């Protein structure tokens, strides 16, 4: 039998398989290399990069919740310049796409980071995290309002020529106007969801369990919400959609393909089972073979009516 075709396209980017690892859960790409070759992945999305290094939030930064976890890392990172100097040369050795996740406090900052990365060989695409507080708008998330979402994406688009992915926050009442705004701003693809706002309280100390009070929820607990967001997104835009949220095995990933995702990202599952992304690739292949589909494109968006 002919080998099944797992390749998928995200804007101008061709992935050898549709399984990527999510920003913030895979460091700068090399932390799991003792366990498997990261080059086997469809792509690696590195930790969110900002113009200057960020220390991040006070600990505790993580707390487990039923079937999930809250984090308040505070986007701690080494800064884009250090990344380009120290990490990127090591990542160029890998046989897969490196996608840089970026963020800023103002749209000018986003633009500067994008400019620096645009000049770099070895970065295939940018994923713009717009789930960050807009300093000029009193901390409201860029991704919570069409106007600021458009502003960020269009300012990045002006300086960045390769594939541009907008990563959306689920902390909104209606995602469609945001999708429209980033599409008009020049995004070639969208990825969703980022974490959901949440908190946990220690009843003995009567304090929040996270050092910064609240955080972002991820893991299996958020999968149904993520799946619905992807379902809605696919039905409101022609842009390719990358599904993220609570994916731990091939069955989870296949659900996202069925509702229309062209690729998926594995996040929190990396912590639980570092080989999850590889097992998911194998599981998708086995599913396609079993159902006699030669190409993942036959699976994508093949959800039947209820």
């Amino acid at each position, binding site marked *: 039998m002919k080998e099944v075709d797992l390749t998928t396209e995200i804007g101008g980017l061709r992935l050898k398989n549709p399984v990527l690892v999510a920003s913030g859960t895979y460091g700068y790409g090399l932390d799991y290399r*003792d366990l498997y070759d990261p080059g086997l992945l469809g792509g690696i999305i590195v930790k969110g990069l900002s113009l200057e290094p960020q220390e991040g939030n006070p600990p505790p930064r993580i707390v487990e919740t039923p079937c999930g976890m809250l984090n308040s890392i505070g986007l701690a990172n080494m800064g884009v310049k250090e990344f380009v100097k120290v990490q990127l040369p090591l990542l160029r050795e890998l046989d897969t796409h490196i996608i840089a996740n970026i963020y800023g406090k103002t749209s000018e900052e986003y633009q500067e980071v994008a400019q620096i990365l645009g000049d770099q060989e070895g970065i295939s695409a940018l994923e713009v995290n717009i789930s960050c507080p807009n300093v000029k708008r009193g901390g409201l998330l860029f991704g919570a309002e069409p106007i600021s979402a458009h502003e960020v994406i269009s300012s990045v688009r002006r300086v960045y020529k390769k594939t541009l992915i907008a990563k959306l926050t689920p902390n909104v009442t209606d995602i469609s106007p945001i999708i429209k705004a980033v599409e008009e701003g020049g995004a070639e693809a969208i990825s969703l969801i980022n974490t959901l706002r949440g908190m946990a309280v220690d009843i003995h100390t009567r304090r929040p369990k996270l050092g910064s009070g609240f955080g972002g929820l991820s893991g299996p607990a958020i999968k149904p919400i993520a799946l619905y967001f992807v379902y809605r997104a696919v039905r409101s835009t022609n842009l390719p959609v990358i599904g993220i949220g609570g994916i731990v095995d091939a069955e989870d990933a296949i659900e996202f393909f069925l509702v229309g995702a062209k690729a998926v990202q594995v996040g929190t599952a990396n912590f639980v089972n570092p080989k999850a992304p590889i097992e998911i690739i194998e599981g998708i292949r086995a599913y396609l073979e079993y159902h006699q589909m030669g190409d993942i494109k036959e699976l994508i968006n093949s959800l039947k009516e209820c």
Partner: protein
Amino acid sequence: MKDQVGVVLSNREVSRDLFLLRLRVPYQMRESRPGQFVMLKVGTSHDPLLRRPFSLFKVREREVEILYKVVGKATSMMRDLRDGDTVSLMGPLGNGFQPWGEGETPLLVAGGIGLAGLGLLEEMLPEEGFLVAGFRTRDEAPLELIRKRNSIITSEDGSLGIKGTVIDGIEMLLREVGKTKFSLFACGSRGMLKAVSLFARSHSTNCQLLLESYMACGVGACQGCVILTHSGYKRVCRDGPVFSSDQIVW
């Protein structure tokens, strides 16, 4: 670092709520250094979701021992492990202790379950090395696991050994052995580690601490486990778990 399946050889209570888990592993872990740990997962359920960090207490040819205290969800599941059950363990992880210096006498300081983090180091201890182990009460102390030679045991209620804390134990030791240049290796609660640090500073003694923190990945990828040091936030899993006591901001 490897991710492997460990088969339970035995799992027994050694003192109140303290258990010793012996595992057979496919790959030998003999290269593990004192102070290193593994990320362990029992079962495939999503609740609890994350792996939990545990120090390597003893390592033999294809055999690993973990000494753990039952405190919550994951450790309660560990208590229920039977011979032949399997767990997933990833490691060895972290940096481990630096050896003591020329002319220094190693002194291990364990507070309660802190004993677990000093197991591999204890095996390397020379004849003249010392151990001070402190507990709240007698029934918390796993006496069979504590070396007989050159060890001082303290208990807060006086039901075992010297009445007091590990600091009282260290002070007694100093009175007994007189002028000795010690190098301290401590593991225990945050409060105890702070007290040991202050002691080390006032006696100009080298002191290494094995610190704990909530962890998600255990390998340095998530930035979740940081503690504050004089050179900023450091990841306990990757930059630690062993830190020199003068680095820590309390």
